[in-house]
């Protein structure tokens, strides 16, 4: 399973997005606001989810802002961190 696929799966499970399927989440869909519809408090949960399932820590805003744009940007961030 690719990082993007796993990411969609854990987002649906851990953020209780049960009315969505992985196929309905576009790779470039915005995670927050319009798009997936997550809010600022979901960002807290998302950081926990990424650490729990991928062992990757989003340390601060400098890392978080570019990473938390879409599934694509977050998957890329995770892959880069895991490759280090």
């Amino acid at each position: 399973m690719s990082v993007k696929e796993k990411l969609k799966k854990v987002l649906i499970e851990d953020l209780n997005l049960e009315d969505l399927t992985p196929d309905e989440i576009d790779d470039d869909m915005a995670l927050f606001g319009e798009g997936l519809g997550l809010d600022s408090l979901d960002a807290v949960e998302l950081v926990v989810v990424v650490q729990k399932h991928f062992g990757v820590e989003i340390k601060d805003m400098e890392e978080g802002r570019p990473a938390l744009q879409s599934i694509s940007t977050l998957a890329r961030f995770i892959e880069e961190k895991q490759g280090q």
Partner: protein
Amino acid sequence: MSSWSSRSLGRNWQHQFFYLAIRLGGRRLAYFVLNFIVAWYVLFSREARRRCRFYLERRFPQAGRRQRLVQSYRLLQSFGQVLIDRATVGICGADQFRVTLRGKEDLLALLARNRGLILINAHVGCWQVAMSALGFMETPVNLLMQREEGDIDRHYFDHAGIECPYHIIDPRGFLGGALEMMAVLKRGEVLSVMGDRMLGDDRNGVPVDFLGGRVLVPYSAYKLAAATGAPVVALFSYKTGPASYQLELFRTITAPVSSGRDAQAFVPCAQEFADSLAAFCQRHPFQFFNFFNMWYE
């Protein structure tokens, strides 16, 4: 739902007048003048009485009309004194006030866990004067604080012409400052937030019982605690004398370890905070400064 506005009841020239009074005659002169100003507002400003009534009707439901006038006077007088004290610290220096802390050992023990520390305050007493008692913690303090354009009441560091000694996190920043707040807690720092007013979206609040009604309070602090393992304490300040304040740890609140997206999981934490605040209002009925209708039931 929240009808809170940062717009001050007083006008800009009135604030400036008090700053001048403090410069010329110190806190005492400003207090003296305040008594007349407050009397004027209580007698002639229906808006001022209306703003006081939201809280006073909950805190003193049995009060008659005359008692309510006296209570409005006491509430506005206390609030005015706090604003004067805040300005006095900036204009004349922090040594104008003696600040004591109840719960210092507990705070040190919680900090020693090295998981950061979340201080939940409320619009009571004068946190800006009282925060000076936290210098012993020797760790950076970060404040979640929103300042509106056009705010006319100034913070003590504005008066002093110095940079704010605390790092301000703006809730209007990226993702409401959520990542920034997580980062400071991960570094073992202190994060101070207000737990009694909603800022922005009502979805970020949970309903709790408070003074016989239902109010929405934010639950972001408990969510952050659940995510980072940071302990949470309800810490309130109150004026104990003309030149003295006390900062008191009212309660340590334990957040659930993991909660997912369900806001309801944080209701018990928010209720603990509301119960602490209600206990504060019982002890210090005229030091609660939310002049808007918090209650929706």
